[in-house]
């Protein structure tokens, strides 16, 4: 009986406790949901919906005016079979992904390393290096086209002074992408500042310990600096890859300005010059969607771009985590 009573007592007192706990948890959950609601809504409206809509449109024939018409995999089949320029556009973007990513991260790291070692004038140098990233892309590109003008541009004039033939830069299909890469490097101040912050965050004691162990500057950089800033470098790599995959304004402005075909109101009549060497994947996607009214095909191109971007990011993050685990294990 005692046992029964005690069981009853326990049971009757634990029930309200459980109910209270459940109510508290529900309240907590509601509060959490309330706090994350704005972000979730933003995510759903500005990312989730466009993504789903793009996937849907990629299976349709859609001219932007009339209702979309389902065509199955036609757009994807066209992309991999009959459409001729997508290969060129994909190559140009891939070129930028590889070269621009490596150069941008290396350049930003190099500049940030120099600034982190400066004894005086750090603020001024840091500001000067950051400023170009604030320039509007179209204006910066026009300025670069002028600077690299083969005939009267300051760069070629200087090169001629020292006996070097500077080449045609934006007017040469072999040099237009390297010239665009230089433009991107000039405007990579944001990444440089982020890497600089990471460099300044590396504990000084680790350098001192490494120095005591006889490590030189290269070994200190390799064994102390790099492991410490690797998460930031990974961010830099992913950021640069996405930047290259979305390379648009600079390519379109450089192509039209260098070929001299921008019209009175600044619109371009000719995209991709010279010889489609500045026709990047996003530029071609824009042309297909908004100039040729093939929004279904453009959506299919966008889906492919999304898959590639996500794939790059996934592979890089996985490799980075793996190497981190290995380091921790060691």
């Amino acid at each position, binding site marked *: 009986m005692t046992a029964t009573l005690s069981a009853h007592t326990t049971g009757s007192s634990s029930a309200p406790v459980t109910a209270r706990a459940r109510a508290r948890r529900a309240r907590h959950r509601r509060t959490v949901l309330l706090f994350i609601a704005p972000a979730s809504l933003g995510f759903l409206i500005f990312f989730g*919906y466009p993504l*789903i*809509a793009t996937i*849907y449109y990629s299976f349709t*024939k*859609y*001219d*932007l*005016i*009339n*209702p*979309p018409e389902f*065509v199955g995999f*036609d*757009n994807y*089949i*066209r992309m991999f079979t*009959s*459409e*001729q*320029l997508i290969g060129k556009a994909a190559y140009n973007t891939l070129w930028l992904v590889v070269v621009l990513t490596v150069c941008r991260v290396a350049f930003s790291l190099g500049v940030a390393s120099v600034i982190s070692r400066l004894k005086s004038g750090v603020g001024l140098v840091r500001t000067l290096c950051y400023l170009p990233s604030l320039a509007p892309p179209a204006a910066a590109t026009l300025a670069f086209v002028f600077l690299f*003008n*083969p*005939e*009267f541009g300051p760069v070629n004039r200087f090169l001629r002074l020292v006996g070097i033939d500077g080449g*045609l830069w934006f*007017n*040469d*299909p072999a040099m237009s992408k390297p010239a665009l890469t230089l433009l991107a490097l000039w405007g990579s101040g944001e990444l440089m500042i982020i890497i600089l912050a990471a460099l300044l965050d590396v504990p000084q004691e680790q350098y001192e310990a490494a120095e005591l162990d006889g490590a030189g500057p290269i070994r200190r950089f390799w064994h102390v600096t790099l492991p410490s800033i690797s998460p930031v470098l990974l961010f830099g790599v992913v950021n640069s890859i996405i930047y290259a995959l979305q390379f648009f304004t600079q390519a379109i402005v450089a192509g039209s300005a*260098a*070929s*001299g*075909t*921008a*019209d*009175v*109101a600044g*619109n371009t*009549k*000719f*995209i*991709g*010059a*010279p*010889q*489609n060497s500045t026709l990047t994947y996003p530029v071609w996607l824009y*042309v*297909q969607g*908004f*100039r*040729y*009214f*093939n*929004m*279904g*095909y*453009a959506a*299919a191109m966008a889906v492919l771009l999304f898959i590639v971007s996500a794939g790059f990011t996934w592979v890089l993050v996985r490799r980075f985590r793996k190497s981190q685990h290995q380091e921790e294990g060691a």
Partner: protein
Amino acid sequence: MSRTTRIAGTARKRGTLLACTAAALALLTTACSGAAAPSGGTGQAAAAPGKDDKLTLTVYSKFTSREYEVVTKALGKLKAKYPNIEVKHEGNQDDDKITQSIRGGNPPDVAISFYTDNLGAWCSNGSFQDLKPYIERDKIDLNQIPDAVRSYTEYQGKRCAMPMLSDVYGFYYNKDMFAAAGLSAPPKNTTELFEAAKKLTQFNPDGSIKVAGFIPTMPFYANMAQYWAPNFGAKYLGQDGKSHLAEDPGWKAMFEFQKKLIDFYGGHQKLEQFKSGLGDEYSADHGFQRGKLAMMIDGEYRTAFIKDQAPDLKFATAPPPVLDSIAGQYGGGFTTGTIIAIPKGAKNAGAAWELIKQMTLDTDTLVELANGLKNVPSTKASLTDPKLKLGDEFKTFLDMYDSGKLVPNPSTPIGDAHLKAVNDFAEKWQAGGVPDLTEGLKKVDQQVNDELAQKGSGG
């Protein structure tokens, strides 16, 4: 509650959640596609407004600064007939913005485009309303507009735009340079053009080009395949509506002529170097205006730029030289122009048509626009109006306009895809990147036909 029951409950909840999500997404997607199809364009002419009706017409155009003022003034002339109609002219609106406004369901009442490239697409997808009911109702005689101009404002017989003003591409030459080289008349065919280019070209001691007689590379100023093609009798599409460039002798002749001139200058690289030192197309440093080019093909509007930016330049105009074998075509050339239309979903279509009539058929308005914008007025009556004050050099373009030999770009549903394909090819060809001209042109045909097929299935 047992574990199994809980799991079943959770699964049910998840199922419901998934179903709700799927339904919401489907709804969102459907909602989006629904929003993309604005109403309007019933196929019947909307009634003209009453004389005292009070309303505001919105007009989108790409005109800016001085040209914007000229067009706004011309649009305002509608007030003489409809005193209570206000016209709100929004400049700097390009073709993309016109399309976006139509698909957003909030189009202007009247859309003006600088280009005819998108006309085929706009006509075929119903972005622009069919003007035939209005033309029939008001018994408009379209014969007052030359055939070529009528052709670039309709698509497969569907008239969905009217020509506001026209551009005609002629031949410009520097009179001083001609006199110095002993040339007395402009070339009439490509053989004469080649010989004149040789005589007029000057090289620096290092072999670089000092003054070019005639630059053949594309793209450069008005050197685009579309501006040259009529002078070689080159056609984009065959009778079947497909691209047949590889079988057209005109295209081959054009590219071979281009290559011959490039070889004369010492190669593509040398011309690129020279070209890069010339000013932009619409700047005061334009190569022809600075005496760096002796001859060129350009639109009639260049006369206004020269008057404004290089008033001391002694130049003359003539019809462009044509391929020797089509000498009968001399006197014609390429034409395009500004088009004006009523977009699908326009709120005041009846009043919009009255404005379009004013802007495209009223002689006084056209003459005023032509004088202000230095373009060719589009009706035959306005061509001979005594109030037309366009200068001696402009007469060439008026004569060309009335010659019956003008050639426009074909209206296609693929925008300027065919033009890009041909110009891309021209770039590659002139740089020596195409070993076999016919095979190269076959690839262009494939590319254009793929785009045309796309309008039949996919995307």
